[in-house]
């Protein structure tokens, strides 16, 4: 007989991601993913000036502010057929890269590493052995004996005082924890250093974006960063160099710590290269344009279809490319009206459900409609998006930068553990972590490249940053646009339909198809499971009361559904719940 488990961190007033599992013989046999809060951005935007949309969309999500701002301006620019100045593309690209690095580093060290790292066990580490292990593969100054001794002492004093602080949510001593004390210590040390690096990445975004977390420098038509190399109030030489120094420091951490730590952790958990593949159709779109015409991109796009050979390339953002026409969103199992899957330009967001479906009890079978998340499909197929899709598309098409860091990661595992990792093993829970570190290093390298392109272009005397989107508006015209962005969690697309009377513009429709919709979406009208649902099947569950294994696989996607309620719970209830029923 199977056992049902519900993992539901529900209590921040409105709910977030909920996972329901059926476990049979110590393994997950079925999984359901549901988003328990609905996001009405489409409704909020109808009737507004499309030039204001990005200010609203960047508030959809507290973590992914920048990405929704970028996708939104790109969407309106796509509708109007605007080509923005090269400086504007490059400034946006550097912000995109710094944001991605920040996001990936925070995810690994502060939110998911604790699934694999036993913080308390780090107290048993031999500091000299830890430093020697690290020196084999990295010359990071934070790995010195004095630095590691200081971290160990600090940890000891926290444990002694009974204050495990941020680590109280760990599964310490769980039988699925397998790192050596030395690797645990290294991870704790880098966890602390990552907080500092996170601040540096934020500074880059703040310098170029005028502010964080919500940037202010964007505009439909370009950016608002006035460029004058000699003017202290504008983007000048001093600020440009400040950005470069920060980007170099961040990249040093990524290549010498993040990439290496993922390799060090992965080698202790070789089983996790076998679990968590799920949906093996993959999608990513090109990003980091290097010219004003948006004809060349530093990051490749493509579609991988399970069972088919090779990669169908996506080489641009034009409406004729293979992604744009084939996207649909289904609502058969979601709390919305309608039966047919619709293209986003024809998309609707009209809630519809039975009361018992919304209040679906934990540990019971799912009702017909069980989530607020729609089910996006490409050509009718579920797709996995995110760093793994990005890295697989790059690797299989021989994209030089991707191959470089995949090779570096494989070499690091070999050097530490003498284990041979093959690219085929990347279709897994650990593969997603490895791919994220690889993508992060690629973004670091590209951030510096695009800094160089920007400095060179400004050096040529080009200071253009903006084109006026109002020029050339035609009365009685309906414009359709799609803004594509390959965000940290994967392919993000904002779709807009604009009406113009020749003088002004108004949004008629707006739909955001976000990465976590692709990954966390439910079953569709053909009963095809979404990636979260599929990837959990077959995962072991050693202790149903502590389903650490399920969290490991879900965390490997860097879930970002909870957009974005943040209410302090004054009653001090437990904020997360795991319910187990038989």
């Amino acid at each position, binding site marked *: 007989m199977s056992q049902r488990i519900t993992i539901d*961190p529900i209590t921040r007033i409105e709910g*977030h*991601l909920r996972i329901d599992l059926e476990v049979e013989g110590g393994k997950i046999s079925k999984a359901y993913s549901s988003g328990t809060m609905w996001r009405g951005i489409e409704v909020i935007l109808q009737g507004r000036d499309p030039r204001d949309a990005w200010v609203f969309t960047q*508030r959809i999500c507290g*973590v992914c502010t920048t990405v929704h701002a970028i996708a939104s301006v790109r969407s309106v620019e796509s509708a109007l057929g605007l080509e923005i100045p090269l400086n504007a593309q490059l400034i946006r690209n550097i912000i995109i890269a710094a944001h991605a690095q920040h996001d990936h580093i925070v995810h690994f060290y502060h939110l998911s590493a604790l699934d694999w790292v036993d913080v308390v066990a780090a107290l048993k580490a031999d500091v000299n052995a830890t430093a020697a292990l690290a020196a084999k593969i990295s010359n990071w100054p934070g790995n010195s004996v004095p630095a590691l001794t200081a971290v160990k002492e600090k940890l000891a004093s926290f444990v002694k005082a009974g204050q495990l602080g*941020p680590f*109280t949510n760990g599964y310490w001593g769980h039988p699925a924890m397998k790192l050596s004390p030395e690797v645990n210590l290294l991870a704790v040390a880098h966890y602390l250093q990552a907080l500092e690096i996170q601040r540096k990445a934020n500074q880059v975004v703040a310098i170029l974006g005028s502010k964080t977390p*919500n940037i202010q420098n964007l505009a439909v038509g370009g950016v608002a960063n006035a460029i004058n190399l000699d003017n202290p109030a504008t983007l000048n030489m001093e600020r440009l160099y400040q950005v470069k120094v920060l980007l170099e420091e961040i990249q040093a951490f990524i290549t010498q710590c993040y990439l290496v730590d993922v390799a060090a952790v992965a080698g202790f958990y070789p089983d996790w290269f076998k679990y968590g593949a799920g949906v093996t159709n993959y999608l990513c779109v090109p990003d980091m344009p290097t010219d004003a015409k948006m004809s060349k991109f530093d990051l490749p796009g493509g579609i991988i279809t399970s069972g088919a050979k090779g990669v169908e390339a996506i080489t641009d953002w034009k409406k004729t490319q293979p992604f744009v026409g084939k996207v649909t969103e289904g609502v058969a199992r979601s709390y919305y009206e309608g039966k047919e899957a619709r293209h986003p330009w024809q998309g609707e967001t009209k809630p519809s459900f039975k009361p018992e479906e919304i209040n679906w009890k934990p540990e019971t079978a799912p009702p017909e409609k069980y989530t607020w998340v729609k089910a996006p499909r490409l050509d009718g197929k579920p797709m996995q998006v995110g760093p793994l899709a990005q890295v697989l598309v790059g690797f299989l098409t021989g994209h030089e930068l991707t191959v470089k860091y995949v090779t570096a990661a494989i070499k690091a595992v070999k050097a530490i553990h003498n284990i041979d990792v093959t690219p085929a093993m990347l279709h897994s829970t650990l593969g997603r972590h490895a791919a994220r570190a690889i993508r992060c290093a690629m973004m670091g390298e590209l951030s510096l490249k695009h800094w160089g392109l920007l400095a060179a272009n400004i050096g040529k005397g080009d200071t253009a940053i903006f084109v006026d989107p109002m020029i050339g508006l035609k009365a009685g015209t309906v414009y359709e646009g799609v803004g594509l962005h390959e965000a940290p969690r994967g392919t993000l697309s904002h779709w807009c339909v604009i009406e113009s009377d020749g003088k002004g513009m108004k949004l008629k429709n707006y739909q955001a198809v976000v990465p976590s919709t692709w990954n966390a979406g439910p079953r569709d009208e053909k009963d095809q499971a979404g990636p979260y649902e599929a990837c959990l099947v077959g995962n072991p569950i050693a202790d149903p009361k502590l389903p650490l294994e399920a*969290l490991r696989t879900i965390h490997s996607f860097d*879930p970002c559904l909870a957009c974005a309620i943040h209410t302090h719970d004054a009653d001090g209830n437990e904020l997360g719940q795991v319910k187990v029923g038989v």
Partner: protein
Amino acid sequence: MARISVIGIGNVLEGDDALGPTVVRLFEAAWAVPEDVAVIDGGTPGLDLTAYMAGLEALVVVDAIKARTGVPGEIRVYDKAGILNRGPIVAMSQHEPGLRESILHAEFQGVSPPEVRLVGIVAGSIDFGCRLTPEARAALPGAVEAVRRTLADLGVAVTKRDPPRDPGLWWERPQFT
């Protein structure tokens, strides 16, 4: 570099969750603060809150709160110990870490502000839409005053702006024109 920060937390697209950003914008429109005090509409920064608090002498957070025993619009001020005194958490996403977890991360790193205050306003409805409930709206003047008093308690004197500035509550602008 700011010595003290006042940061409003919340999602302006989600009903009463907009309380934090609304209150700090109204506060800044009505009162001028000294140069070493920063007033920030922080949105929903999750763990990035740690980055905002590093090295400060004091942090004042303004946020919508949920309180079983409270009524919508009620204002409660907490100190650091009051914020930290809570049960364990199973984090699922980047959004999960809130104020308490951010303080704990900062404590472990040794950069936590000695003083942290939370000016909490009990939320009514948190549902999508750019509109506060009447109870939340009625609480705004009291919440702005609670921020002023909290700063005074931390030794910060503010001066009244005359005339007040536009608070810039862009999300409340009408949708169909």
